[in-house]
C-alpha cells in the first residue's frame, strides 16, 4: 500500500488541529481501510469530534495531512463519496419539512444545478428510507418524530447520497434501545454493500458485532488502536494510566510535553 493509494478511504498523517490557537488534536495517525467499521471512543473533550470534523474538512489542519481516497483534503473534490451525520443536529428547521424532503436533501452532492429530480435521486431516497425503517413515515413531518427517529432520518439523509465513506458523530447520543437497534441494522446493511464507516460513539450497544476496530482518544492523542473494545472497557481504562489500556502492549505515546515531536521522530 502506498501512502496515496486511492482505495484507502481515510488517512490521517500526523495530524494536529488547533482551535483558537489551542492544540486539540496532537499528532494523530489513523488509517481506515476500505470496508472497515471503526469506532472512536474516549471521554468528552478527548478530540473525537475534532478528529471527525478535521477529516470532513470542517476544521483546518494545523499540521500534517488528511487524505480521503488517496487525495489530500485541499484537492479533494469527490465529496459525493462522503456521507456525514453531524453531532446533535436536529432534523427540524424553522419551516416544517417531511421526512422524505429531509432525506432527499442528502442528494445535493450528486445533483447538478438547476436540474429536476431524477429517477436515480428518487430511488436512492426510497432505498435510504427503507434501510433505516422509516419508509412508512416518509410523508410525516419531521417534527412529529421522536428524537431517535429524527436521528435515523439524518442517517437516511447521509445514505441517500450513496456514500462510500460514512462518518457519524455520536448518532446514538440520547437514543433509546429500539432506535439504536434500527440504527445498527441500517449500518449493517450499509457495511454489507462495502461502505467504510467511521463512528464516534458513547454508547455502542447493538452495534458491537459490526465493529472491526476501536480507536480510543485521550487528550488529543490516540491512546488505543486495535481490536474492538466495549465502551465500558474503554472508559474503565480512562481511570488508569495510558499504558494500562487493554490490548496487551503500549500503544500510547508517553506525553511529556504538549507537542512531543522529538520523541516521535526518535521512535
Amino acid at each position: 500500500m502506498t501512502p496515496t493509494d486511492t482505495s484507502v478511504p481515510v488517512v490521517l498523517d500526523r495530524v494536529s488541529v488547533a482551535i483558537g490557537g489551542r492544540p486539540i488534536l496532537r499528532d494523530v495517525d489513523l488509517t481506515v481501510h476500505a470496508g472497515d467499521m471503526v469506532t472512536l471512543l474516549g471521554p468528552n473533550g478527548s478530540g473525537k469530534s475534532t478528529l471527525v470534523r478535521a477529516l470532513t474538512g470542517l476544521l483546518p489542519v494545523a499540521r500534517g495531512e488528511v487524505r480521503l481516497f488517496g487525495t489530500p483534503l485541499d484537492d479533494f473534490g469527490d465529496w459525493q463519496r462522503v456521507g456525514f451525520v453531524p453531532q446533535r443536529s436536529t432534523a427540524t428547521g424553522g419551516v416544517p419539512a417531511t421526512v422524505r424532503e429531509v432525506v432527499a436533501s442528502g442528494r445535493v452532492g450528486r445533483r447538478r444545478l438547476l436540474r429536476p429530480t431524477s429517477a436515480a435521486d428518487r430511488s436512492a431516497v426510497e432505498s435510504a428510507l427503507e434501510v433505516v425503517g422509516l419508509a412508512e413515515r416518509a410523508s410525516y413531518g419531521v417534527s412529529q418524530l421522536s428524537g431517535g427517529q429524527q436521528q435515523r432520518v439524518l442517517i437516511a439523509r447521509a445514505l441517500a447520497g450513496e456514500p462510500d465513506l460514512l462518518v457519524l458523530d455520536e448518532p446514538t447520543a440520547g437514543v433509546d434501545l429500539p432506535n439504536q437497534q434500527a440504527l445498527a441494522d441500517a449500518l449493517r446493511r450499509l457495511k454489507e454493500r462495502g461502505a467504510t464507516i467511521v463512528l464516534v460513539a458513547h454508547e455502542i450497544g447493538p452495534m458491537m458485532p459490526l465493529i472491526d476496530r476501536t480507536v480510543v482518544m485521550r487528550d488529543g492523542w490516540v491512546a488505543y488502536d486495535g481490536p474492538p473494545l466495549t465502551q465500558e472497557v474503554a472508559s474503565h481504562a480512562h481511570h488508569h494510566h495510558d499504558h494500562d489500556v487493554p490490548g496487551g502492549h503500549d500503544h500510547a505515546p508517553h506525553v511529556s510535553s504538549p507537542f512531543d515531536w522529538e520523541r516521535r521522530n526518535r521512535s
Partner: protein
Amino acid sequence: MTFLDLLSLDFMQRALVAALLTGLAAPAIGTFIVQRRLALLGDGIGHVAVTGVALGLLTGASPTWSAIVVAVLGAVLMEVIRERGHTNGDVALALLFYGGLAGGVLITGIAGQGAATLQSYLFGSLNSISYTDVVFTAVLTVVVLVLTLGLSPQLFAVASDQDFARVAGLRVRGYNLLIAVLAAVSITVAMRTVGLLLVSALMVVPVATSQQLARSFRATFVGAMLVGCVASVGGLLVSAALSFRVDVAPGPTIVLLALAMFTATWPIGVWLRRRSRLMAPFPEVAAAPHRSADVHPHEHGEDCGHPAVPHADHVDYVHDGHRHAVHGEHYDEH
C-alpha cells in the same frame, strides 16, 4: 368617482402588478430565511436600504438603484459579520438595523427633503410607481423566482444544516450570500408597495401563516406565495378603497391583512397539530400483561366520539387516560 373607476386608472394598475410581483418574490425567499431561523434578516436589510434611498435623494440618483446597491452591500456585510463569528447573528443584525435607519433619516435631512418624501419609501405609496418601476420589479421578481425555485434543493440543504451541506460539497458561503443578496433584492422590489419598514413582514408572515396548515417544505413554500399574493393585492385594494375618506399608505393594510390571515389559520394549526399528536399510532410493545377493563357500559365504535388510534392490528379507543381495545364481549386495557 367610484372604486371601480379607480381600478381603471393607470397608476392603480401599475400598483396592482407591482403588488402581485412583490407578493410572489418576498415569501419565496422568506421561506429560506425562516428555515435558517433568521426571520429578522429582512428587517435589518430593510433598515439599511433606508440609507440607500436617502443617498439617492441626496445625489439625485434613482432611489431604487441606490437602495438596491446599499441593501446588497448591507446584506453581504451582515453575512460576513455573522460568519466571522465576532458577534452573534442577531447582534450583527441590530448594529446594521440602527445604523441604517439613523443614517437614512440624517442623510434625508441633509438632502433637504422632508419626512413626507421618506415616508413613501418607508410605508409604500400607491401613486409613486412609474412604468419603469413596474418593469424593474418584474425583472427582479423573475430573477428571485428562477433562483429560489431552481436552486431550492441546494438552498434547502444549506438552510437546514450547514455542516452537512459543506461535507456534501456545496459552497455554503456562496449560498448564504446568495440568500442574503436575494433578500436584499426582494426588499427593494417590495419597497414601493409595502415600504422598507414593513417589508420583512411580507417575507415572514405568509410563511408563518402557511406553515400552520402545511406539513412539507414544498407546501409551505407554495402556500406562502399564495398568502403573499392575496395579502399584497388585497391590502392594496383595501388601501385604495379607504383613500376616498382618509389617506392610508398601502404598507400597513397589506401587513395587517397578512396578519389577519395568520390569526385565522393559527387556531386551525393548533387543532391540526393536537389532532395529529392524538391520532399517532401507538407503538407495538411485546408481552404486555392482559388486563380487562372494569365493567364498561359504553359501546365504542366509529361514531362514539373517542379518538380511535391504530395500535398494531387493531384500534384503541382513548378516553379519560385509558386505551380500550375490543376483546370479544369486553374491553381490554392497552
